[in-house]
């Protein structure tokens, strides 16, 4: 039992570290991709190719003056960025980052918790994620912050529904809510990946994930022309840093979810024919999983610098009148096809 607990602790630390590292360098990648798409150079001063830029940013965030506005609610103003960050980190607990390692005859799964209700846990975490933004906007005692946070919250609530129903279709296909089982069922040839059986579901899920992360084209909560900076207008220093960083962590988690639920997770198609040792196969699978995650993160960024922002009524229209009915149709179709196959 003891080696098992020690392994889990190490795994938690590794995943936390990796999440933060990837989120840190996502900020760098975002600037480089933006620069590439706008025909600029991007950050190139700190270190070789500007690779030390995220560290310079972090130093800057930590050393700036930490300002709390006079009319603000001090407790909630401080608590809000912490809530935003911790809820963003919580979802990675149920993501299977690899199959399992066999050391000394003991099997150690590369997943912190294989919850029986993994998918529901994810929707739970997503639904609590609203609080950080809402409290931050309210506690700032600023009209623009409040408006921005209310926008963000209503957007996230609206798109949670489509996301949830799209996930229900996946649960129906695999007959399990555990993300480990969902990934395991996509093992083997490439056409067993859920993207080939649930293409509509993937498009819905992906759109909703963009909205949940408050990324362009759904970044209305921080619409500069109307709302100054949205819910984080009054924030400065590392508190602002945590809000911005939480967005990148959310992006990492949604990319991981998309690749786990629709793109086979850590499964490499046809790898079982190579007869590799179990641990090598796991390591290769994890590497493949991270490649998929990086692909989706890059996808998020390319979309951000390609598509302009929606108008707020268009956003609500898309969420409630297009995505939700589509998700329900997708769920019904899945059910009918599953019944016919039986």
């Amino acid at each position, binding site marked *: 039992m003891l080696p098992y607990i020690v392994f889990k602790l190490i795994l938690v630390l590794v995943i936390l570290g990796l999440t933060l590292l990837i989120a840190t360098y996502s900020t760098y990648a975002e600037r480089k991709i933006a620069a590439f798409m706008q025909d600029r150079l991007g950050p190139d001063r700190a270190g070789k190719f500007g690779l030390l830029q995220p560290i310079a940013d972090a130093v800057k965030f930590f050393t700036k003056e930490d300002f709390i506005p006079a009319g603000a609610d001090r407790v909630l103003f401080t608590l809000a960025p912490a809530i935003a960050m911790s809820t963003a980190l919580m979802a990675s607990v149920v993501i299977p980052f690899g199959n399992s390692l066999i050391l000394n005859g003991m099997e150690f799964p590369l997943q912190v918790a294989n919850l*029986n209700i993994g998918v529901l*846990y994810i*929707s739970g975490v997503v639904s*609590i994620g609203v609080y950080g933004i809402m409290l931050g906007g309210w506690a700032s005692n600023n009209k623009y912050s409040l408006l921005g946070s209310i926008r963000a919250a209503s957007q996230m609530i609206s798109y949670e529904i489509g996301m949830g129903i799209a996930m229900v279709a996946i649960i129906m296909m695999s007959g399990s809510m555990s993300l480990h089982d969902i990934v395991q069922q996509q093992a083997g040839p490439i056409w067993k990946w859920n993207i080939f059986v649930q293409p509509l579901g993937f498009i819905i899920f992906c759109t909703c994930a963009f909205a949940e992360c408050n990324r362009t084209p759904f970044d209305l909560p921080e619409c500069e022309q109307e709302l100054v900076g949205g819910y984080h207008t009054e924030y400065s220093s590392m508190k602002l840093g945590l809000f911005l960083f939480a967005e990148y962590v959310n992006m990492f988690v949604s990319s991981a979810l998309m690749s786990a639920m629709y793109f086979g997770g850590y499964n490499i198609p046809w790898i079982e024919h190579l007869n590799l040792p179990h641990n090598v196969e796991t390591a290769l699978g994890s590497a493949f999983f991270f490649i998929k995650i990086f692909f989706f993160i890059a996808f998020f960024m390319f979309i951000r610098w390609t598509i302009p922002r929606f108008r707020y009524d268009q956003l609500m229209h898309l969420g409630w009148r297009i995505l939700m009915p589509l998700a329900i149709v997708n769920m019904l179709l899945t059910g009918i096809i599953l019944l016919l196959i039986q």
Partner: protein
Amino acid sequence: MEIAFYVLAVSAILSALAVVFAKSPVYSVLWLILTFFTIAGQYVLLNAQFLAAVHVIVYAGAIMVLFLFVIMLLNLNIATEPVKPVYMRAYEIVGGCVLCLTMVAAIHTSSFEFTPVNAYDNSIGTIEKLGVTLYNNYIFIFEVSSLLFLAAMIGAVILAKKGDI
């Protein structure tokens, strides 16, 4: 496990008290969310993971967000308690005492010797068990309650579109 139960129970009671005693409604809502989390923790201890997750999603994730919306939009953020007339306070005290008396009487007359109906089952409370039970033993009640939900949803839409219809 017992320690976890007591920690959760004590924090549930303390945060429930904080809901009542908090001056600002926003803090009340936040303490209430904490109460829901501790209760969800109790469900997990009872092996009812599904119930715990749904409890968090529905209460903490949806209903409390709605409460926060209402409080923020009504601007109830001034930490002042409304001044109530004396007869209102008298009513409140009498009502509270009666409720307290009822609860004490209920606890007094009930016995606390439990005999489990079924032997302990590791998979009890999991989503598979719950689904089988719901769709076999309680299918009629389940369908009727979903019809009720549908009616409530349609009602909400009609209320919201009052002018257009």
